[in-house]
């Protein structure tokens, strides 16, 4: 999807009654637009189920939306999605050419840095909210991510 298409879409949704919109193409491109906050493109993420209950791996399943999401993203067992709380550019390493913060299969501790999302030169280190194993890395290095986009799939440990 081209940037102009997304802008067109945003304009359309902005004028409509739609509060939240999600669209996924066959090749896995995913667009998520939410009007639930005053700041359309750089909003704080709503507290997620697992943010409130980091110690309880079963918590995400209790969230109303996650049953649907599981079907879409192919989550299995107690896997959870880690989403970016901000729009920006995804960086897997602290500087170009450096080792990535984490690799698929790594087990990380709560508070450990998973990636950087840069917006307007602000470097945001996204930390693990709970001890977990990184099952999949969805975010791609130096590529833009939208607010609420899934950047990792993890399994609480």
């Amino acid at each position: 999807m081209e940037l102009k298409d997304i802008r067109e879409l945003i304009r359309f949704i902005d004028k409509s009654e739609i509060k939240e919109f999600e669209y996924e193409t066959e090749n896995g491109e995913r667009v998520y637009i939410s009007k639930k906050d005053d700041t359309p493109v750089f909003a704080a993420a709503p507290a997620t189920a697992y943010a409130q209950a980091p110690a309880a791996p079963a918590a995400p399943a209790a969230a109303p939306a996650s049953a649907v999401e599981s079907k879409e993203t192919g989550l299995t067992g107690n896997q959870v999605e880690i989403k970016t709380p901000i729009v920006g550019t995804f960086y897997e390493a602290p500087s170009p050419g450096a080792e990535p913060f984490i690799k698929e299969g790594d087990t990380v501790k709560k508070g450990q840095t998973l990636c950087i999302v840069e917006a307007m030169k602000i470097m945001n280190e996204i930390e693990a909210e709970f001890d977990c194993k990184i099952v999949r890395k969805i975010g791609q290095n130096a590529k833009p991510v939208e607010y609420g986009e899934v950047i990792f799939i993890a399994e609480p440990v």
Partner: protein
Amino acid sequence: MFDEKLYREFLATENFGRNILVFDETDSTTARLLDSETPYYTVASAESQTAGRGRSGRRWVSESGVNLYFSVNLPPMKIEDLLAFNIAIGFAVCDVLREYADVNLKWPNDIMAGGKKLGGILFETAISGSVMDKVILGIGINVNMTEFPPEINEIAASLKTETGRTFSREEILARLMNGFESFSDLFFKGRINIVEEWKKYSASLDKKIALHKNGVKTVFTEKGITPSGFLIAEDERGVKTEIVTGDIGYDFSG
């Protein structure tokens, strides 16, 4: 060497910079504050930095004892506030430096003098879920540097190259802390209108700017910023675009 006693003679704050850590050499003062637990408003200053970071990991050229490289541990704020504060803090830096030289801002917050870069501001945060754990404000200012490496000689400036004078780094750092304290108070009381203020500080308002995207350079006219701090760029046909980040480079060379 940084004279802490002299610094304290100029410091007139309650919080900002009261607690100071001085490093002879460190990888990055921001990294030192991110990796440790220090009281809020602690400032970490280094005589030189070995891994000072600029946007996209670009190295900030660092010579010992002539410039200011410092970071401040700020209390967490809302993500939306940080976007505007990222712009607004540039006003506070300019207010202090304008006592010495004619400086202005290149979006979002590069400190410019005579079209050359004199300093930079780089926030780093740590976010867990939707909660901001840490907010570190990092600033580099070329103060008394006169010899720049050839690759940046044409695009870099210092207070000394602009004025011919040598400055006390301790005094400037203390004055910045004084300025930040009163300014951030105004900012968080909602008294700073960044859209209006930007017009007083922008180096390129209503001027031609070049934006680089995927290696293609496009010329726009700068038309100010939005309340969120995004840049408003107008193309030749008068169509306005808001620049946030991502694949649109904002190396202004026009």
